[in-house]
């Protein structure tokens, strides 16, 4: 920054406005005017021969070789005519050149004389000029050396300044880079921290959710357990009620069956109150008798037979419509025949 300020001060006077440059420019201008003034002293009677340009041409440019167009195959006649035309034109040209050469020979001889004179004068002038020039050059060299020294110093300073500037800039850049790096590092760390925290948060969230879901599951299980318990209780109560209902229902049908059997049983004459026959009855759900067997006999054939006959005489047993009650009590049941009031 400091260099910068210095630099601004130097730039107020550009280099071409320096005294050395002005001097050099003036010396050059004088030389040019002198030279132009010398040439203007040449007599006008001696105009510039056109041979000058010709000479320059002869010397400078060789005869160009004919163009051969290897690509086109032009018409032969036209080619021949063109070739003749060319021959004639070349002959005329050769003539014109010989004449011109003769005129140029003459001019050259005169010119040589003039030139020898002019050369002498020019050499003298040149000697003076060289003297003046040398002096000017010396002056200029001196000025130039000074300027150069100055320039070098300035350049050195400039260089120094630029170096410093660069160093400063580099330092700044380095610092900046460092800062950037640190910043990035910080950002990275922050980001990593954020990520870590996010991960932690997520993990905790997951744990929380898991815990919650576990708690929920536990609660749900407890609820289910309660419900199951309730259901079991209700089922037990219902089963009890059902059994009670079935029992009362079965009681009703047992009464009906008893009635039917009392009307179909003819206790034989031999029956006594001590006699007892137990039959096992198996019914179809329709109440029809599927089978009947004597579980325990009385020892009296007629008595056992009367029981069997009574049991089979009931065409259709009165049974409940309810299948469960039927299955529970009436699918198979025993009947005891025991005439309490017999002799």
């Amino acid at each position, binding site marked *: 920054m400091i260099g910068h300020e210095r630099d601004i001060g130097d730039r107020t006077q550009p280099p071409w406005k320096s005294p050395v440059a002005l001097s050099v420019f003036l010396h050059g201008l004088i030389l040019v005017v002198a030279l132009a003034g010398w040439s203007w002293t040449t007599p006008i009677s001696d105009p510039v021969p056109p041979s000058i340009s010709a000479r320059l041409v002869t010397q400078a440019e060789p005869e160009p070789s004919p163009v051969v167009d290897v690509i086109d195959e032009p018409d032969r006649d036209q080619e021949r005519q063109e070739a003749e035309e060319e021959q004639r034109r070349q002959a005329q040209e050769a003539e014109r050149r010989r004449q011109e050469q003769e005129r140029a020979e003459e001019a050259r001889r005169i010119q040589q004389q003039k030139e020898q004179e002019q050369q002498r004068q020019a050499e003298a002038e040149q000697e003076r000029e060289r003297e003046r020039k040398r002096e000017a050059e010396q002056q200029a060299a001196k000025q130039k050396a000074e300027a150069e020294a100055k320039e070098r110093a300035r350049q050195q300073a400039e260089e120094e300044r630029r170096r410093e500037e660069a160093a400063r800039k580099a330092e700044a850049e380095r610092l900046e880079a460092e800062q950037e790096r640190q910043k990035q590092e910080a950002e990275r760390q922050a980001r990593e921290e954020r990520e870590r925290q996010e991960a932690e948060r997520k993990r905790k969230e997951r744990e929380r959710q898991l815990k919650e879901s576990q708690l929920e599951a536990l609660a749900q299980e407890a609820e289910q357990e309660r419900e199951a318990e309730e259901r079991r209780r209700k089922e037990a109560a219902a089963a009890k009620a059902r*059994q009670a209902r079935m029992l009362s229902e079965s009681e009703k049908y047992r009464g009906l069956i008893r009635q039917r059997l009392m009307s179909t049983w003819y206790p034989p004459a*031999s029956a006594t109150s001590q006699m007892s026959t137990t039959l096992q009855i198996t019914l179809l759900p329709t109440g029809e008798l599927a089978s009947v067997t004597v579980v325990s006999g009385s020892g009296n054939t007629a*008595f056992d037979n009367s029981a069997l006959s009574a049991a089979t005489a009931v065409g259709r047993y009165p049974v409940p419509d309810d299948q469960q009650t039927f299955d529970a009590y009436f699918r198979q*049941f025993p009947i005891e025949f025991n*005439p309490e009031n017999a002799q």
Partner: protein
Amino acid sequence: MKNRVNRSAGRLSLLMFVMASLFVVPATGNELLIRITEGADSAIPVSVVPFAESGQMPEGDKVSRIIQNNLQMSGEFAPLPPEQMLSLPSKGSDVYFRDWRLLGQRYVLVGQVSNSGGTLRAQYELYDVSQEKRLVGATASAPVSASRSLAHHISDRVYEAITGVEGAFSTKLAYVTLERNADGAIYRLQVSDVDGKRARVRLESDEPILSPAWSPDAKKLAYVSFETGKPAVYVHELESGNRERVADFPGLNSAPAWSEDGRSLLMTLSKDGNAEIYRMNLATRDLSRLTNHWSIDTEPSYDHTGRGFFFTSDRSGGPQIYHKASEEAEPRRITFGSRYNARPRPGPSGRYVYYVHQRDRAFHIARTNLESGAETVLTRSESDESPSVSPNGRMLIYATKSGGESVLTVIAADGGAAYSLPASRGDVREPAWSPIVR
């Protein structure tokens, strides 16, 4: 996890409990015994299908008709009139049980009778309709002249097959008829089948005949006859017609009763001044006095043991039934229900004693349960007398008044339907049921 296992185990056990209970319930249901302690009051519906006949049949009732009547008379059966039958099968293979079930029948008797050379041959089968089971299948034969015996025999078989009690249809009845005409009264001692048929007069007299009693072998009758002008006890051999006056003491000679072995007679004698009960050894004519009381003791009858006896005594003021467990035992009063209970006749089982029972000026037949002392009046008619129990204990015959005349009526011993025997001419009284002759 453990909890879950426990829970699922709990659920499993619950499931198993539920499933088990499904099987357990019927088992407990089996404990719910249905007990039948009473049967139908009505008589057993039985169908005696008229037997198919081949050959010359005897005059009179057909065999199947006799059987039907017998069963009807027992009071225990209600035979279906043949005109109500849907079919008349004569053998088991023709019996369609569904038909008989539709008719509400419990038993069906089918059979065929053929006469070959003067011999009646009966093939018969008894079926249990509800069980569709044959209870009896047999063949019996008898001379054509004994077709009623054949029918009674079949009746006995049928009766025993169904009731388990020996039939008494082949037994006899002894009774006395009184015919009054212009010359006076004619008493006849008669013997008939239990259905009153085939009656034959064994003794005819202008004087009263009383108290016929069957010997245990059913070959003799003891009775009281006034033929000499005063009562005497006679023993009458039926086959030969020989008769013997065994007791002709001064005063009262009455109410003979056979001992179990047929060697002795119980009788009432008043030779010692007061009516007392004696036992007479028929071989020696020796007497043993079995009662000794200032009141009247009469109408003795051996109990089922053959050692003790029942009798009537008014020692309590009016006639009542007493029992002596043995000849030496103290008499025990049996009846208390009314002021008049007389003429005891024990049943063969020893459980009941039957007698004439007065209630509200009417005389009925009643019985007392000797175990419980419970008295049951069996008849509703008003002048019932002389009860006699069938040897199987199932029927009771007694005399009663009907339309101004005395008739015999048979009822079930437990008081079932009454069956009046067809009366011969005039009054019929003093019936005595014979023992079963084996």
